[in-house]
């Protein structure tokens, strides 16, 4: 099996160049989709039979939660690849995911609290879904903290990668918590096998937001990874050539 394409991605100048060229292709669709999704969700979608206009928080809450899990999975897989194949760019990729994922975990938790207060009657309970999502935030902060605390870049890469991989078990826990255990948080309406339990006029803007947030994640990672690569490769000649131009 010809793995050249894979190993070429491991080349820092190659990834640097590709990321730079790909980024605009993600940036514009991201902005358009998120704007469309917000308009569709906040203005066009009909109110819910039970939660009225309050349900519209779903259009920022669910995509943020999705991004928080997607970012962690990407981070852990990249860190694993970095550990196994000793690819520096994989660690650069993982490091790029962390601050993004952490922020959107905050967004998911914050919007969730604002939604929970009127609907459930409380900002917070230590239920399996909420608690595991909070654990996810701690894992992100732990990953970033480890990186900052360890001087030697290679040891920092390896230690933080182990943490990222260990924490990966939390991702299915977050998602399936509402099914495996009794939880106050409702089951998924979309991210599941089987028909969505949300009407089409409400579902469409939500799907647009999911796609928009996915592209947003990609765009942000593409920007960040280039900075990471420059920092890691600063001794090398190709960096000198690239920044001189």
């Amino acid at each position, binding site marked *: 099996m010809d793995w050249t394409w894979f190993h070429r991605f491991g080349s820092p100048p190659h990834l640097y160049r590709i990321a730079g060229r790909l980024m605009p292709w993600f940036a514009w669709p991201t902005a358009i989709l998120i704007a469309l999704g917000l308009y569709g969700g906040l203005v066009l979608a009909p109110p819910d039979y039970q939660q009225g206009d309050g349900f519209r928080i779903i259009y920022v809450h669910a995509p943020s939660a999705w991004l928080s899990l997607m970012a962690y999975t990407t981070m852990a897989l990249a860190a694993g690849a970095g550990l196994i194949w000793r690819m520096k760019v994989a660690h650069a990729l993982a490091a790029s995911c962390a601050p993004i994922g952490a*922020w959107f975990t905050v967004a998911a938790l914050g919007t969730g609290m604002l939604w929970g207060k009127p609907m459930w009657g409380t900002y917070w309970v230590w239920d399996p879904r909420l608690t595991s999502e909070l654990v996810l935030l701690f894992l992100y902060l732990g990953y970033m903290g480890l990186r900052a605390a360890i001087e030697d870049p290679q040891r920092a890469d390896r230690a933080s990668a182990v943490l990222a991989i260990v924490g990966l078990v939390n991702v299915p826990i977050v998602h399936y918590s509402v099914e495996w255990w009794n939880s106050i948080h409702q089951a998924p309406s979309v991210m599941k096998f089987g028909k969505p339990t949300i009407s089409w006029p409400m579902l469409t803007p939500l799907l647009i937001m999911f796609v928009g947030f996915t592209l947003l994640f990609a765009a942000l990672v593409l920007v960040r990874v280039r900075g990471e690569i420059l920092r890691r490769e600063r001794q090398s000649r190709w960096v*000198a050539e690239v920044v001189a131009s």
Partner: protein
Amino acid sequence: MSDFLSMGGYASSVWPSVVLTVGIIVWNVLAARRSFSEAHAEARRRVAMEQAS
């Protein structure tokens, strides 16, 4: 319009949620760009220093 702003009485939950999320999106865009431009500027400085020496 006031119907829209009041969000059926849930304005105090919906609008802060939207503002929080949009704020986090904007912050991430700015922070990512800053992270790159700082790395780029630093690399430039290094190259200039090495060429001067």
